[in-house]
């Protein structure tokens, strides 16, 4: 029972898993980098990052590099912990069957 509850609904999508995976091993990622890595469209990626920001798993920082706007994404401590729990739950489910 407890294993099932650790499967986090917030990560239940390929793009969201991807965003979290990238941010776990990088200090930050910008929009373009995520887009290239995940092969997502602008709108699709924006909606998933917003969803992850809403539950405070990632932090979004907007700034300017020269005159170009640049958006950086960081994983929060909460996001890190939740994602680890999610991975552990996945692994346990795989080992069980």
């Amino acid at each position, binding site marked *: 029972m407890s294993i099932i509850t650790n499967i986090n609904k917030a990560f239940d999508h390929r793009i969201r*898993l991807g965003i979290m995976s990238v941010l776990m091993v990088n200090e930050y990622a910008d929009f373009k980098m995520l887009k290239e890595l*995940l092969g997502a469209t602008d709108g699709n990626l924006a909606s998933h990052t917003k969803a992850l920001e809403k539950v405070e798993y990632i932090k979004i920082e907007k700034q300017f590099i020269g005159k170009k706007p640049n958006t950086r994404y960081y994983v929060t401590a909460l996001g890190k912990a939740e994602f680890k729990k999610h991975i552990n739950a996945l692994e346990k489910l795989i080992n069980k069957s």
Partner: protein
Amino acid sequence: MDSKDYLKDISEIKNMMNKSSRFISLSGLSGILAGIYALIGAYIAYYLVVTYSNGVLILDGWVFRYCLLTLFTVALASIVTGIILTTKKAKKQNANVWDATSKRLVVNFIIPLLVGGLYIIIILSQGKYGQSGGLMLIFYGLALVNASKYSIGDIKYLGYAELILGLIGSWKPGYSFWLWIIGFGILHIIYGAWMHFKYDSA
């Protein structure tokens, strides 16, 4: 969702973590070629020194300048080969050659190498020739160990091997030439072949 999907999720997570933080398109073949260039270069240098310099390398003779030229040619040829073959491999894998991961790899590889190179030039200008052979291997080894965090992790084993050779070289400077042949020639060929069969042919 059955366990197959979970398995797919996990492999997707691992794949994305690697892809976003490591540049893995390095070509094994370029390692083999770099090793061969080094062996050819070493043969030329050895021939020059034995034939025209009685087996002793004097620092401001023409033989030394030709040896230096050989060294630079080998280094340049290795770098150019590496860039060409890596670009080819990256294209084949549909990866970007010049992205955040490869930039990070190059920066982390070059910093120990650049500092080491400058340091060696400084001690050479102070007349401390004996240590330079070992030091080049040591700094190259450190550069590899540092770079391995941003590329195929196995590179660190090549780095450790170069470090050991470098330490032997600073302990017994007389063997530097042979340690170079092992470090820059033979080890590159072995390592390149290993990488080629492990990653490229698959």
